[in-house]
């Protein structure tokens, strides 16, 4: 591993982000990454965060048109409430703060505690939970669907709405709409190795793949002998479309888990488009790359979001972050 010692990986990365991105304020000590120009007068602020190991999520999405602040936790461990309280206080312009929270027990609990504390300090806080992973049956018997690829859609689209100057209730409603219309499915071709453990967190022999994985090295629901890119696309897209019945064009995120080459990812993207074509689902926009990753895991995920005119307009709006930038 390209590290100094496991204990400092997060702080080391934050120092690197600070070095590479002078347009960001990086508080290494308190683990908060902020837009340098925050608070932005009259605009709703977006604060997200989660365990580290999913880079560029979330710090790579801080900037005009997306997040106002990000709170990285330890590797695969949610941040602590102190971080979000500090971020909220630093970015609130008076227009309020939206917390974007991936649906994991730890993230939910820490953001809830943070929201209460921030409100005690006079910050108006709204929260949106991202829970798009169809591999988890959303039943009474689990912690509910996980938040994965749709987090990028929520952060980008709600960020554009905030940048336009829309009020907190509107930004929150748009974020919820994006989440409600998004579903994901992920596949691992190799297990993940955390710096703290130093060895793979589950044992996945070569020649097998794990279907329905999360982004924390938690094993998936089912293991099978290796499939082709086309077979995986069939499986993943069909799994998503079992839950999402788009009435119109979709946004597609074809996401690498960290160790899958873009060459393979683009080949997979062609297969995803083929399956969507066969299923009669038009694709409005496609984003391909490593955006919501799981350290050194090989594999991919597919996220689809049923778009509408407003969501497409907000998706196309300019964004300037370390990991995502387009428009003016």
């Amino acid at each position, binding site marked *: 591993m390209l590290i100094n010692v496991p204990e400092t990986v997060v702080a080391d990365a934050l120092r690197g982000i600070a070095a590479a991105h002078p347009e960001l304020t990086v508080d290494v000590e308190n683990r908060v990454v902020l837009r340098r120009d925050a608070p932005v007068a009259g605009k709703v602020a977006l604060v997200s965060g989660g*365990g580290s190991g999913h880079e560029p999520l979330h710090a790579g999405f801080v900037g005009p048109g997306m997040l106002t602040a990000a709170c990285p936790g330890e590797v695969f461990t*949610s941040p602590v409430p102190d971080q979000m309280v500090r971020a909220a206080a630093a970015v609130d312009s008076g227009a309020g703060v939206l917390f974007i929270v991936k649906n994991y*027990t730890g993230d939910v*609990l*820490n953001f809830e505690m943070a929201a209460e504390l921030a409100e005690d300090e006079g910050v108006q806080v709204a929260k949106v939970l991202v829970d798009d992973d169809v591999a988890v049956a959303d039943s009474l018997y689990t912690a509910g669907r996980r938040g994965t690829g749709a987090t990028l859609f929520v952060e980008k689209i709600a960020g554009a709405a905030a940048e336009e100057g829309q009020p907190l209730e509107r930004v929150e409603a748009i974020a919820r709409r994006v989440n409600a219309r998004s579903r994901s499915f992920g596949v691992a071709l190799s297990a993940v190795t*955390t710096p703290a453990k130093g060895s793979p967190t*589950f044992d996945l022999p070569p020649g097998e793949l794990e279907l329905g994985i999360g982004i924390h090295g*938690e*094993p998936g629901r089912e293991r099978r002998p290796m499939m082709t890119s086309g077979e995986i696309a069939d499986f993943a897209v069909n799994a998503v479309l079992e839950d999402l019945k788009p009435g119109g064009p979709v946004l597609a995120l074809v996401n690498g888990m960290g160790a899958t080459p873009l060459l393979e990812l683009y080949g997979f993207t062609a297969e995803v488009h083929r399956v969507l074509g066969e299923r009669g689902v038009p694709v409005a926009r496609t984003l391909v790359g490593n955006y919501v990753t799981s350290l050194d895991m090989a594999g991919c995920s597919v996220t689809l979001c049923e778009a509408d005119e407003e969501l497409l307009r907000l998706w196309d709006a300019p964004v300037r972050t370390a990991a995502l930038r387009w428009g003016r």
Partner: protein
Amino acid sequence: MGRAGADRRAPVGTVSRVMDADFFRRWMELAAAAVEREADRLTELDSAIGDADHGSNLQRGFAALVAALDKEETATPGAVLVLAGRQLISTVGGASGPLYGTLMRRAGKTLGDAAEVTPAQLAEALRAGVTAVAGLGGAKAGDKTMLDALEPAVDALGESFAAAAQAAERGALATVPMRARKGRASYLGERSVGHQDPGATSSALLIAALAEAEAAR
């Protein structure tokens, strides 16, 4: 929550000596030492059904807790537990931080300003803490969580701290055949069966440290 109809009040039993803030500080130090000692095992258990960080997260939290107890005045048992809870919430992260932090804080607040507390008062305070944990996490006994160790431990506290430690250990072992219904292990469905829950295991360490503190008096 818990077994319907059962009398949840711990009878006052063989343990009767009162405990002061020093005793509670010793308990926390012994708990920190146990977490340090067992961190690799906790992480190993967590890698089977979670995300392989329970040991290192608690290690970080309990080290911060001990450092804070060294630095800050804590005159009462309640103050020790409230400070401990606050430190865990601020340093552990994940679900364990808020859950263990809430356990300690609620127990500490229940003890109030008393300079000395009886085992029965501690049992009552920990029961309040366990109830708060159940409320926060939405789990109940049998869901393969820390509650499966903590609930039987609290039930046995009136008998003796050693009995509570044994009950917690049995409770942790009893999570092996359970299917996880809460937290990250729940994503595995049936595949969570056959593994001991890391949270129940660390909870058993916490109660064992209490018995150790009692034995060392």
